[in-house]
């Protein structure tokens, strides 16, 4: 069966762990972006050691961020741009 990233992310949490999985899924972006407190990070890390579904969500979200920062090509600044900015500024009082 094909797994779908968004479906996994929105999946009903494993029974008995309901509140934990929900809490962890709310922390996901914070953890990925380095915005979680160290306490939350610990909690998150500890949870995904045991929970396959949250572990997978974490992998997928990391992959997505990696696709943007690792594969999106940067455009090259035209050489004339810095010169023309400097020239305009020199003329500005």
């Amino acid at each position: 069966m094909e797994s779908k990233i968004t479906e996994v992310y929105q999946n009903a949490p494993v029974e008995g762990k309901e509140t934990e999985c929900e809490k962890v899924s709310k922390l996901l972006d914070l953890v990925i972006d380095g915005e979680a407190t160290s306490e939350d990070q610990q909690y998150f890390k500890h949870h995904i050691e045991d929970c396959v579904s949250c572990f997978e969500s974490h992998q997928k979200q990391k992959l997505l961020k990696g696709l943007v920062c690792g594969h999106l090509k940067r455009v090259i600044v035209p050489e004339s741009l810095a010169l023309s900015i400097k020239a305009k500024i020199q003329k500005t009082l």
Partner: protein
Amino acid sequence: MSERTGKQLSKEEKDARFEAELLPVLDPLYNFAYRLTLDEDDANDLVQETYLKAYRFFDYFEQGTNAKAWLFRILKNSFINEFRKKSKQPAKVDYSEVEGYYNSEDVEGESGVATTTDMRTESVQDLIGDEVASALNALPVDFRTVIILCDLEGFTYEEMAKILDIPIGTVRSRLHRARNSLKEKLEKYAKSMGYNSNEI
């Protein structure tokens, strides 16, 4: 307006400080402008306008503070004003649609070649990069913006809130929705390439 007293910089000193502190941001700023406008000439104009505004308000910029976030904020505001003007020009929109149509045919031709080559070659890396770019470009500009600021430029949520003039809670929810949209678009691509989304 009150006259600024105290240590007034000479024009040379001001220009030197301006260039030293703000010009190093040119590369990320141009890339941001390009991802917003999706047009090199527009990006060029937007960046020039941003620097001229920054120069006019340079007295208000505190030395040693976050020059990058400050410039990104000015650029974002200029873009919103520009964008409003441009959106009243349907001719330009029509043209870009035609252009996109022909480009997509070209890409199809190239991908046919690429699939016959080694999957680990640079052309496949390029292909992934192109696909990420077109998925990103297809997002609404607000979604594109938060992904660029966060994932490409590494701004914190707090910096993003300042750049975009929105509360941190809005930054978080917008980023979350933007990522979900991007995921959906990239999944379609992964399937069309015969990958399972686990293996992108």
